[in-house]
């Protein structure tokens, strides 16, 4: 396929789920789930075609760093130039297929667990999908903001209407948290749009703002506004308290989508916007971000450890795991950045699967309290096997997907003297993860099957196994053969890190060959790592201390 066709396909993918909405609203209640599944399956197929097409032309000349890039006139009037600009690079292409995979899985899971107001439920899920896909491909700040908000509303209703006992509190908390963040970001976008050029044209084009650059003082404020919004979404410590509530109250599909893709919107935003648009400010705040990430890793893990509700445990584990991603982003190391991005995918898969599994057992026993289970491994062997694989993936076991990201983040962060201390503290999260996940697993699965209710538990059926299989397969594939995934990521994230480092004068603005692995590099600074500033003695990539 040609580039133009692929660009068209990309824009189609964004709106493909929306096709189902009017159809679904017209039909009767019982047909809703079928339409929703088909409507969410189409973008999945499209994204696979897109992915293969993308891989086919990968490496060809890029437009503004994006292999696929398209722009239509949108809101154009005198003094205002806002376009419908979308694009895909090696980072967003992965998030795209992850999103289009997670949605049909969540919708199919909902078939069995949602039996009230099905029409609005599925319509909202499809709307949500449009928002998420749109978010990942937007290259215009206003467009991006619209999609960002579009995600907020359906999720609010999904938690608030189809959620658990305390759904109202959880949904309002989710809403207020996110809204505060996004309003600040809106103000920042408007400011950026007004000051991105000297000819008084309001434009929110990503690349024009990127090229314009801002003075360090302005960068600081804009960075803070954007980053606060993303930090809430991630969520980073101490802005994370909406997450456990939202997860516990949300229906399973909501949790899967929330953990699988919605949280990644925060980290993706950091990578796409906070870092390249405001590189100097990003460097200023890098240490703060790293410290908060490390606190989040340990804090989330310790909180997860003492939870009695399995779902809440998994929710807190997300706070911990997402900390690794933010740490990788703000370590300013190419290796750590690649690790952070592949960890976004990895976490989406393993935590998505964890929430599915918790949902499956919840639908049978209607309890998520660890103490209500014990010794069920004997009763549900298939569930046990898949749960165990997923738990080990979440623990970060080498050979499964969770390891790749954590490993790269830790190696990339720890290799630099400036950020080494963060890596040491973050690595303790690896220990605590084993503690809380295996402790939970033991109490739920092992021991004597002593409760009557659990003796009647039925093992997973074919549908449920089928739902989990793609995720389980991906855990192994990504864990044992990460190279093809990383290849596209590196192609896009390496220049990004290079750009940020150059803007901060941490490396020479020349393109030097990367150090050849396998050959010991002589001690001392490398060519590309020679600092511009002669006062700075250490030659490593890293923060300006």
């Amino acid at each position, binding site marked *: 396929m040609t580039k133009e066709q692929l660009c068209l396909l990309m824009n189609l993918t964004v709106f493909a789920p929306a096709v189902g909405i009017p159809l679904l609203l017209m039909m009767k209640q019982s047909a809703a789930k079928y339409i929703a599944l088909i409507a969410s399956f189409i973008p999945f197929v499209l994204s696979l075609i897109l992915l293969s097409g993308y891989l086919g032309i990968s490496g060809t000349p890029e437009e503004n760093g994006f292999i696929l890039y398209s722009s239509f006139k949108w809101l154009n009037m005198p003094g205002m130039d806002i376009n419908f600009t979308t694009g895909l690079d090696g980072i967003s292409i992965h998030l795209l297929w992850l999103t289009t995979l997670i949605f049909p899985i969540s919708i199919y899971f909902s078939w069995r667990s949602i039996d009230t107001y099905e029409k609005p439920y599925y319509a909202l899920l499809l709307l949500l999908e449009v928002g998420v896909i749109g978010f990942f491909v937007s290259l215009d700040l206003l467009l991006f903001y619209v999609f960002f908000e579009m995600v907020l509303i359906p999720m609010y209703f999904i938690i*608030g209407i189809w959620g658990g006992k305390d759904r*109202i509190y959880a949904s*309002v*908390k989710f809403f*207020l*948290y996110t809204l505060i963040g996004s309003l600040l970001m809106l103000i920042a976008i*408007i400011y950026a749009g*007004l000051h991105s050029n000297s000819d008084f044209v*309001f434009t929110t084009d990503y690349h024009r703002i990127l090229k314009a650059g801002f003075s360090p003082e302005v960068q600081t404020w804009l960075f803070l506004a954007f980053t606060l919004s993303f930090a809430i979404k991630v969520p980073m410590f*101490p802005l994370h*308290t909406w997450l456990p509530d939202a997860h516990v109250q949300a229906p399973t599909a909501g949790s899967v989508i929330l953990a699988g893709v919605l949280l990644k919107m925060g980290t993706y935003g950091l990578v796409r916007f906070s870092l390249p648009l405001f590189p100097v400010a990003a460097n200023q705040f890098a240490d703060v971000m790293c410290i908060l990430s490390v606190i989040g890793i340990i*804090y989330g893990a*310790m*909180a997860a*450890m*003492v939870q009695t509700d399995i779902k809440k445990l998994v929710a807190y584990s997300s706070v911990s795991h997402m900390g690794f991603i933010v740490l990788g982003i703000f370590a300013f*190391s*190419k*290796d750590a950045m*690649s690790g952070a991005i592949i960890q976004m995918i990895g976490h989406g898969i393993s935590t998505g699967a964890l929430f599915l599994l918790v949902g499956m057992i919840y639908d049978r026993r209607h309890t998520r309290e660890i103490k209500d289970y014990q*010794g069920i*491994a004997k009763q549900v062997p298939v569930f046990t096997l898949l749960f165990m694989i997923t738990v080990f993936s979440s623990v970060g*076991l*080498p*050979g499964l997907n969770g390891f790749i990201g954590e*490993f*790269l983040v830790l*190696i*990339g962060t*720890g*290799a630099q003297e400036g950020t080494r201390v963060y*890596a*040491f503290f973050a690595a303790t999260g*690896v*220990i605590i993860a*084993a*503690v809380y996940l*295996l*402790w939970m697993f*033991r109490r739920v*699965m*092992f*021991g*004597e099957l002593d409760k009557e209710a659990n003796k009647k538990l039925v093992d997973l059926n074919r549908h449920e196994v089928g739902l989990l299989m793609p995720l389980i397969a991906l855990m192994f594939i990504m864990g*044992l*053969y*990460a*190279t093809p995934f990383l*290849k596209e990521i590196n192609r896009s994230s*390496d220049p990004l890190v290079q750009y940020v480092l150059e803007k901060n004068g941490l490396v020479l603005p020349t393109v030097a060959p*990367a*150090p050849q*692995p*396998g*050959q*010991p*590099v*002589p*001690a001392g600074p490398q060519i590309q790592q020679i600092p511009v500033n002669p006062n700075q003695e250490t030659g*490593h990539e890293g923060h300006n201390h």
Partner: protein
Amino acid sequence: MSNTVLSLIVLLPLAGAALIGLTGFLNERFRHQEKLIGLIATSAVAIPFFIILAAFLQFTSGHGEHHDAIRFSIIPWIETAGIKINFSYHLDQLSLLMGMIVTGIGSLIHIYSIAYMHHDKGFYKFFLYLNLFIFAMLNLILGDNMAVLFLGWEGVGVCSYLLIGFWYEDMEKAKAAQKAFVANRIGDFAMIGAMFMIFGQVHSLNFADINASAGSLGDNAFWITLLLFIAATGKSAQIPLYVWLPDAMAGPTPVSALIHAATMVTSGIYLIARMHPVFNVPAAEPVLIVIAVVAAATAILAALIAIAQNDIKKVLAYSTVSQLGFMFMALGAGAYTTAIFHVMTHAFFKACLFLGSGSVIHAMHHYFDETHEHKDPQDIRFMGGLKKYMPATGMTFWISTLAIAGIPGLSGFFSKDEILANTFFSGFDHGSIYFIVWLVGTITACLTAFYMTRLTYLTFFGEARYKTDKHHPHESSPLMTIPLWILGILAVVGGYLGLPAGVFGHNAHILNHTWFHGLINNRDLEHTMHEHIALEYGLLVLAIAIAVGVVYFAYNFYAKNGLEGDEKVKKVFGSMYKWMENKFYVDEFYEKTILKPFVWAGDNIVVWFDKNIIDGVINGSASATAAVGDVIRRMQTGYVAHYALIISIGVVIIIGYLILG
């Protein structure tokens, strides 16, 4: 040999695991075809053994002094701007030797397990895990970079977890499994730290690169080696992380033999030997002393505990911890090849002992079933005189006991003597603390000879402490006794690869002077040894006297006193005996000082902070809460409209700002 054939070394065990796992999972009938499962699983380990053997022959037939490692690789794994890791492997002197131990003993234990696990409902799972373990272990010892080693390192940890918790319906066993995994993870944390520190300076994780540029690590070598040692204390059960290994005996006995005696627990020693150039950097010298001291402390602590245990597997478990301590003493003295030598001899006799104990437990279990007695089949107080009914088990167990005790001519004698000699002679040039280490090691050797003789005597000799009128225990099947004989023979002859150089000449020590030559450079002690050649003879005589004397004494002591002997031992140790019986309360200490406070902090600091501080700020004040309630009420009464209103207000603000701004 071609890359494909060599790849089979690693891939066959994985394929075996996949085949058994998938077929067993899908097909219920397959699960009961024990012979077929056993055959598949055993071939998946035995074929790699023969490939490694062929590679070994090819390697030794190579010309010249300098041997190049045989290399093979499967697929790329991880690649970023700075990191490039492939699933690539190397067969050099060290990994060939380790590979033969793992697959050789592994094959024997697979065969043994076919009989041992007979009629267990998890039969196919057992062999699936066992194959998976061999796969992980081969990655650990054959991987040519730290990342693949780490894959194996954590992989063996998982298999160990699965196998310790094999009978998971018993919560105690599941707890032991979890404890093992977490303790190992603490070590893994240190391993990750070592990796990124190394990568920060060497920009590679390949052993060849790391070892080649070890000299440039400078002062960082101190921290790197310390972290590597901490990593090793997890996997190889040294103070402070050894506590998981005794509990790991909850797993089926062949697992204890394979994983918790012969192979996995020695991977920490392998790691240090593999990376010894980093430990030879001057900055790492203090770490070597730390290793030696910790090792000596572990060795004697575990030996003391072993004296007071009555569970046959527990005694062997503490004995393993103690013997691992000996191996680390060698590492601490910079005698890396000596440590590997002891890894090998220990693998032979300890695997034999564990399999022998399995044979005993198997027999006692059946006996108690037949007699309808509810007694612990692992408690040696209910045994005695078993050699009459189980001659093969008894004979091989006795041989292995003599080997571990250090009776001259048997394998344990040579390796243990070499360790003690190396620590002793290190005392002259590298700090007199090594003399203390040597002294502790020598005392531990006495204790070892004592508790092992006690164990063997109370199990196999003397009067039977069970009724033998109608029923009596039976010898196990040949599937179990043949592996015992093979290991027993190896426990006898394995030591001749390393005859003491001081006595028999430079070339008599095949391992050091022919095999490892050029690959592993021990700290040079030859000069010191030559200066004090009389002392070396003295040490040798002392070692012989200790082994023979203590075994003779212990045998007669228990022959005379029987179980009452323990009472006398109790009197000798006085109030310390209670501590030994209770494992010096280390578990309780960790529980009180680490685990409990940690969970307490999770509950009372983290969760409290979430609830009261963070959420307190967000909806804490009364008015804010009321406002939230208000919002909720409004939203409930028509939230769509209100949201639309909010959006509209927002849009108005934006447009207003745009126009006015």
